């Protein structure tokens, strides 16, 4: 049975953002796991051709951010945009050739990340204004008091399989299970902002770097073992965090494809079902199809 929620009590808020440019410094190069210098695109701007359901890795990219990367120009308003926007929220383009197009939030990464169809994204550029209908922070699951929900739109939760089991646990379908060794940059940060990079997913590099995570896809729902993200992001044996892969390929060492946090609580409060269809593309928008 679907888990009961307080969705009816949540408020919706209209937020403004702007497609943000890619940023670099004049030294250009960063350093990979084996000391290799690299210059690769991925963060900021509008990244074309990679959508929910597509492989997260295998691109000549660093911190690949699928779709449009969005911020607000004013620092305080930007933090509100980053904290209040939830995965699954609708994003509408307000200005530029793609005005009127709608997409969905797939995660946060110090930018709000919004996936649109390639046709719509072809008309998007940094500087374009977007409107985010933010809803989800404060979402609670009836009868699952030990689990904290964050960054998750109630509409998306309703579309996801699983729910309250007869034994009282919350059933969640996941496409991959992530060991604690994989947790990279993002540990120690708040869980309403940016995401948790996963190491061990460096496709094409050494075996000593692999934790078997090269098969992750953008939009995959994943379970992070021994991770407590209720009040920030930390290692805690016996806890579990559910996230959604919102960024892809990385070359920077200690970084990798990253889940944005959706839920966290004691592991015994969850019942995981391994399900390769547990991906945002199953519920939000199919690759290449107008959402």
């Amino acid at each position, binding site marked *: 049975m679907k888990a009961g929620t307080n969705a009816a009590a949540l408020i919706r808020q209209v937020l403004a953002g702007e497609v943000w440019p890619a940023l670099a410094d004049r030294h250009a190069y960063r350093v990979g796991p084996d000391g290799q210098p690299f210059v690769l695109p991925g963060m900021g701007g509008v990244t074309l051709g990679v959508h929910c359901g597509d492989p997260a890795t295998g691109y000549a990219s660093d911190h690949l951010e699928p779709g449009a990367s969005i911020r607000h120009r004013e620092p305080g308003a930007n933090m509100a945009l980053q904290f209040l926007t939830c995965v699954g929220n609708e994003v509408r383009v307000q200005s530029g050739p793609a005005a009127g197009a709608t997409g969905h939030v797939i995660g946060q990464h110090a930018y709000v990340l919004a996936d649109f169809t390639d046709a719509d994204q072809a008309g998007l550029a940094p500087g374009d204004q977007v409107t985010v209908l933010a809803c989800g922070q404060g979402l609670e699951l009836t009868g699952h008091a030990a689990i904290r929900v964050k960054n998750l739109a109630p509409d998306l939760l309703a579309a996801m399989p699983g729910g309250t089991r007869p034994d009282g646990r919350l059933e969640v379908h996941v496409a991959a299970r992530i060991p604690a060794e994989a947790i990279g940059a993002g*540990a*120690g940060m708040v869980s309403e902002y940016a995401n948790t990079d996963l190491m061990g997913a460096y496709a094409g590099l050494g075996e000593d770097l692999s934790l078997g995570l090269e098969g992750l896809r953008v939009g995959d729902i994943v379970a992070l073992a021994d991770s407590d993200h209720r009040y920030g992001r930390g290692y805690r044996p016996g806890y579990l965090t559910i996230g959604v892969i919102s960024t892809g390929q990385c070359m920077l060492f200690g970084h990798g494809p990253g889940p944005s946090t959706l839920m966290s609580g004691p592991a015994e409060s969850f019942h995981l079902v391994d399900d390769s269809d547990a991906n945002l593309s199953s519920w939000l928008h199919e690759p290449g199809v107008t959402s």
Partner: protein
Amino acid sequence: MTADPMSAELAAVAVGLTGFAEHPVLGDSPYRVSRDGEPYVPAGDGGIVLGLRLGDPVLGVAGDHAAPGACLVHPDPAARLALATYACIGNRVQVRTGPAAGAAGAVAGKRGEAGRVITVFAPEDLARLRPGDAVAVRACGQGWRPPGFPAPVAVMNIDPGLLAALPVQVSGDTVTAGVRLSVPSQLAGNGIGRPAAGWDLDLQLDPAAAAGLLLGDLVAVTGVDARWNMGYRRDWVTVGVIVHGGSPMPGHGPGITPILTGPATALRAVPDGAQHAGLTEAALKIS
């Protein structure tokens, strides 16, 4: 084709830098949130902390990332990062302004993100130091390799004159470091994915694991490669000095400034238990 300049035994360069004793900074709310969801007021997160010294327990005070002595920063963000990158453990420092002018101390560690250099002084000198006082740092150590050091093991963040005072031995192709404890990579928290030349690596130790851990102890983290950014690599070892105490924040804890990193075949970390002596005031010639 020349050899890899990073593995060559070139002469170390010393650079005179200036840091300023830090004043702690808080936002509009005094509260942070602990790993158990409890709001708390962070005390000792940067600035000048009295009464906490190398050799004290990491969980001995009700602080957040409290470090022994004075943290140095710089008002220019790029200069602050340079200060935290080039200063090395064991570097000599001298107070230049204020009531403590002339007092000599040493670098005991570094902290990441915006960058902090942790300096220790004799208690009577530290008591006269005030936020904003200028402190000269004789930065030396980055790029230095001890003569004859096994090539696979990288050395960083350590003054060339200090390594011999730490429990680090070289025998043939192997470096052996005596450590208080060795922990697996999944305990590595804030700092992972960041450059080891300027960031510390917080260890998410539970109270039992941290019970015998002292400020200045050497600790090994297995499965972490810290040659550039810090990240997961199987069969690798990183050894660092504990430079600050614990934190209630999730993902944080006592932090190490890395000094050695290499494959487990070339860098052995041996827990030496109660006999362990890491970085001490005596080694830093602080009286």
